[in-house]
């Protein structure tokens, strides 16, 4: 088990080192997410007031669309010099490699959310500080569920020519439950009177989905990565 987490840590640290130097994925993902939020703001906000209940949906649209972009770019790097093959050749547990990639992507998307969530709050008057702990739990659980599936598919599609088209086609239908959970839970917190029991219910459901998705991905990563 120690070996598993050591490998995952090494893979994540390597991805972060590359990202800190290039800032390529972070900047493109962040720019895309901010653009999505701004476009919705220009379209929906009138005289400083946004329609009720749109903030949660816009937040999760920004997270999911920019997340898909980040997943594709992260694995594009591994494809470019065939380094994914080198990772698969290592005697490490292949699920540990998946876990490292997953944690790297999760960290990256959480960094994007650090900017995007306050931006949504500012433009759509979303009350993000009334229940910060529950909002954080929703964001982490939702992003983890989405990233768990996305990391697996992005790795699977790395050698497929139409990977940029295929990734969203495969990813969005399967992560619909995560998106519904994220949007409904966040909307419950962004109401004028926050509905804590509803938010708690969706957090529980998201965590259950996360457990299922991460377990399935760890289980299937080795067979799907061997051609």
């Amino acid at each position: 088990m120690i070996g598993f987490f050591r490998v995952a840590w090494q893979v994540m640290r390597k991805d972060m080192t590359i990202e800190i130097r290039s800032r390529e994925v972070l900047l493109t993902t962040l720019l895309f997410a901010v653009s999505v939020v701004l476009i919705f703001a220009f379209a929906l906000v009138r005289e400083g007031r946004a329609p009720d209940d749109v903030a949660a949906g816009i937040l999760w649209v920004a997270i999911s669309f920019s997340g898909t972009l980040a997943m594709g770019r992260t694995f594009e790097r591994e494809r470019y010099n065939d380094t994914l093959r080198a990772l698969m050749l290592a005697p490490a547990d292949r699920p540990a490699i998946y876990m490292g990639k997953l944690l790297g992507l999760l960290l990256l998307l959480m960094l994007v959310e650090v900017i995007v969530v306050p931006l949504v709050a500012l433009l759509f008057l979303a009350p993000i500080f009334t229940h910060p702990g529950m909002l954080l739990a929703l964001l982490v659980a939702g992003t983890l569920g989405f990233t768990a599936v996305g990391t697996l598919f992005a790795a699977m599609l790395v050698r497929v020519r139409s990977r940029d088209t295929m990734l969203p086609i495969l990813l969005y239908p399967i992560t619909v439950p995560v998106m519904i959970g994220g949007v409904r839970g966040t909307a419950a917190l962004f109401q004028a009177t926050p509905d804590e029991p509803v938010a708690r219910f969706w957090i529980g459901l998201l965590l259950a989905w996360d457990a299922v998705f991460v377990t399935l991905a760890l289980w299937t990563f080795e067979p799907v990565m061997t051609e």
Partner: protein
Amino acid sequence: MSDVARLSVVDVSRYYGRRKALSQVSFSCGAGEIIGLLGPNGAGKSTLLNVIATLVRPSRGVIQYGDRQLACGADVRAEIGMLGHDLFLYPELTARENLSFFAHLYRVGDVPGLVSRALDRAGLADRGDDFIAGFSRGMRQRVALERALLHDPTLILLDEPFTGLDQASTAALVDRLQERQRAGCLIVLATHDLDVADGLLTRAIYLKDGRMVGSDTDTYGLSERYRRAMLA
């Protein structure tokens, strides 16, 4: 010496859809041999190397590593070192960081010491903290070879290792391979460079359209033997 240095390829075929990349290839080899996989583009050389490396499953047949088979996974991979046509290096990392990363994945001890020795052998001790992106093809190739040999593998797989190398780098690579051969490693390499391979190989295996069309253990005259095997 580990039993992974005794390799048997038994009736191995690999299909991609209806296309046969490999068809009923069989041979055995052992420690201290340098096996050359020779053939034109599309002959199945890289596919065969990938199958032996456990990266690609054979559609039919088995690969036997000593007494073990492909399914052994990580145990077998720990004793395989592979240098691909793409060099398996991260250009955004330095040579030292690349080697350290893979050394950690291969769970070798004393990573800093091992990496310094590997950089010395590659002749890049003073360039270890430079980014791979700034290296020439030959320098990258030397780092990539040391990456493949970091964990002291007993089975070494090389795909077109002489591509893009100048004479001095080619000679250094040949020396390094012969040193590994003397250490009892089994080396399997796919190459088009018959001039370099002539005299280096202990056995040549000729592939054409995914089929094994010949094999011999003669030492010299490889170009002529290759021509004859391809015409047969």
